[in-house]
């Protein structure tokens, strides 16, 4: 009996087990597969039904809003197809989390799916793009692909509610036996077209585009667009290049040949000589040889400038006299003392007035300083002449005890000499005039006995003057071209 009971029980179990799959039974658990929001304003959820249990099964979707216990049912089962639930704008809120459950029910019972929590902003995935156009643009030197597309419908990209980003990918489609190359992806930002440069000539490409909203999920890739790059005309470009290169080489060879061949006219034609400076009268050979006087002599044209050559004149201005018959001069002093010291007269000194007047033809102003130093009875007057280098200063002396000493030049005067010339080589010169004599003219002009011309005074001299000193005098051969010197010395005789 036990055995029969056991067998019956076993049979019943077996029957129920088989009838589970074959005969009617409550439904199996459905499963929510995914929920998507294409534009952040609505969303849709899809589920996968479980086993039907052999009976007609209906599915309902219920949801709760966050922590509230109130349960709502799906607002639209049909818009998104079978086994779907569409939440329209009124029912979509981005502020709360939805707790969604699908219930499968038939005559025998119900089955609940697992609950899924949905935050609308997290499930944003736009629809795939529908149309993608690719064209091959042939510009002169850089051909490129132009990929264009339209934004996904529904997405409100223009208002700023969502920011959209696109991505383009392409690869070479090989119809042969080679393996497929990999995709190259390019990010295209928010624009609706994209250019891809340097396509391989002769290859055939596949292009796809996808998009993403904010930080959501990428959409599916758009349908592929195909393009074939023509095998084109590097030939003309190459020909131009070759011709250009050949021409360049020919020109180069010609030039090199012309330069190496020492044909002067050819050389002059190709490389004209640089013109040298030419100054009329100046011989560059002289410069090379290095004699400066000759050079400058060449510069001096006869007749320019006006040179006072007569020595008489110069003598007029130089008063040197030891003897009675000598004439004493009293010249005027034109001193431009840069130090501001103007010493036209100094009665305490022997030399009453030493006047030096130097003028230049040029506009240079000679600054002359005249300083008097007392050296044990001698009066030395330093004349420093600043300004243009004067090469020659002619001073005439007439037997005067004037001793002129020039630092840079040789200048001296003798009583008998007729020329006192100063060769200046530098900017400053000192003409030192030593005088032993007492100044001739004191403040009162009582000693003046006669006046000759406008710059010669004849003084009566009763005091014998000490012996004259020998003064050398250099005669220079050539006068200064551009310098006119008028020098007056007055000394006591």
């Amino acid at each position: 009996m036990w055995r029969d009971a056991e067998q019956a029980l076993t049979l019943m179990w077996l029957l129920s087990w088989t009838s589970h799959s074959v005969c009617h039974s409550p439904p199996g658990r459905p499963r929510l597969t995914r929920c998507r929001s294409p534009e952040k304003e609505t969303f849709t959820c899809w589920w996968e039904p479980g086993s039907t249990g052999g009976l007609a099964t209906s599915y309902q979707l219920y949801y709760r809003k966050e922590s509230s216990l109130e349960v709502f049912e799906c607002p639209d089962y049909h818009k998104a197809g079978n086994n779907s639930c569409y939440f329209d704008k009124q029912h979509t809120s981005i502020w709360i989390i939805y707790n969604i459950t699908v219930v499968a029910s038939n005559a025998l019972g119900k089955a609940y799916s697992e609950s899924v929590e949905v935050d609308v902003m997290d499930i944003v995935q736009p629809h795939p793009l529908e149309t993608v156009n690719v064209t091959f643009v042939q510009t002169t030197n850089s051909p490129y692909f132009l990929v264009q597309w339209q934004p996904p419908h529904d997405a409100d990209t223009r208002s700023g509610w969502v920011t959209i980003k696109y991505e383009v990918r392409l690869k070479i489609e090989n119809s042969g036996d080679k393996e497929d190359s990999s995709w190259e992806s390019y990010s295209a930002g928010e624009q609706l077209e994209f250019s891809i440069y340097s396509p391989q000539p002769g290859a055939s490409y596949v292009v796809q585009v996808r998009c993403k909203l904010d930080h959501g999920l990428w959409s599916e890739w758009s349908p592929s667009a195909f393009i074939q790059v023509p095998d084109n005309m590097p030939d003309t470009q190459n020909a131009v290049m070759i011709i250009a290169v050949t021409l360049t080489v020919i020109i180069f060879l010609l030039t090199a040949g012309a330069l190496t061949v020492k044909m002067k006219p050819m050389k002059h034609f190709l490389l004209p000589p640089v013109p040298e400076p030419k100054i009329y009268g100046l011989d560059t050979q002289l410069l090379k040889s290095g004699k400066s006087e000759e050079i400058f002599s060449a510069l001096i044209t006869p007749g320019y400038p006006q040179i006072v050559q007569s020595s008489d004149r110069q003598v007029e201005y130089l008063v040197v006299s030891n003897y009675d018959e000598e004439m004493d001069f009293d010249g005027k002093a034109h001193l431009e003392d840069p130090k501001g010291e103007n010493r036209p007269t100094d009665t305490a000194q022997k030399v009453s007035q030493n006047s030096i007047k130097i003028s230049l033809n040029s506009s240079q102003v000679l600054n002359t300083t005249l300083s008097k130093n007392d050296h044990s009875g001698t009066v030395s007057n330093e004349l420093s002449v600043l300004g243009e280098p004067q090469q020659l200063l002619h001073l005439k002396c007439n037997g005067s005890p004037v001793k002129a000493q020039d630092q840079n030049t040789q200048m001296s005067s003798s009583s008998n000499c007729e020329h006192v010339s100063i060769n200046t080589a530098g900017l400053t010169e000192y003409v030192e005039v030593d005088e032993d004599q007492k100044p001739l003219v004191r403040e009162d002009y009582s000693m003046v006995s006669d006046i000759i011309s406008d710059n010669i005074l004849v003084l009566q001299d009763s005091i014998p003057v000490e012996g004259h000193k020998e003064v050398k005098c250099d005669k220079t051969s050539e006068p200064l071209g551009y310098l006119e010197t008028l020098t007056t010395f007055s000394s006591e005789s």
Partner: protein
Amino acid sequence: MKKTTVLQVCVAFVLCSMWAVAGSPVDCPGQDTEGTSCTISIEKLLERAVQHAELIYRFSEDSKLMFDEMLISYGMNLHIPEGTMCAPKTVPVPLSKSEIQEISDKWILHSILILAQFWIDPLVEVQASLESYENVPSALLTRSKWISTKLMSLEQGIIVLIRQILGEGSLALEGPEQTSDRFVSSSILETVRRDYSVIYCFRKDAHKMQTFLKLLKCRQIDKENCSLF
């Protein structure tokens, strides 16, 4: 006996496994914690609210400009002297920095809610009235419609925020009953004037809402350095 027992146990086991209705704990999206119910974090909510408010303000600016252009095309010139046409609100505006620092989160949230609830109805009316205009630019219509829907959404968001931040229960969703001057237009000019004043004044309040939300977001997220001015 043993065989059948074993067989029964096996079959029972197989059957039971098919009918297993196990309740597993729910995973909250974007969060690690598992709980009975999930909520969106406050930072995320504030970010979304600020984004709403910014867009609403921007669209209200655009609407005002478009309305101005439309008026010019009509030949009308409505000069709105400042501050006279906008109805006084129950929301005083803090004027100084110290005042702003004193106001509490509760005050901010309630103020924004009052403002949002106040403007929903007038904007819906204006949008309906705009459709009856001649030569109204379609952009203006879409904009105003967009503003009213988003404003309602923002109101929902503020309620959620109040619940999260302040812990208050769900507020009554009906705002203060206002004596809506539903006016039947006596003249076209009056209608236009009213519509314009709604858009004009709403723009100011939209800016207020945006500012308050930004301040609130700043306070919640970065408590130390929060200065708007």
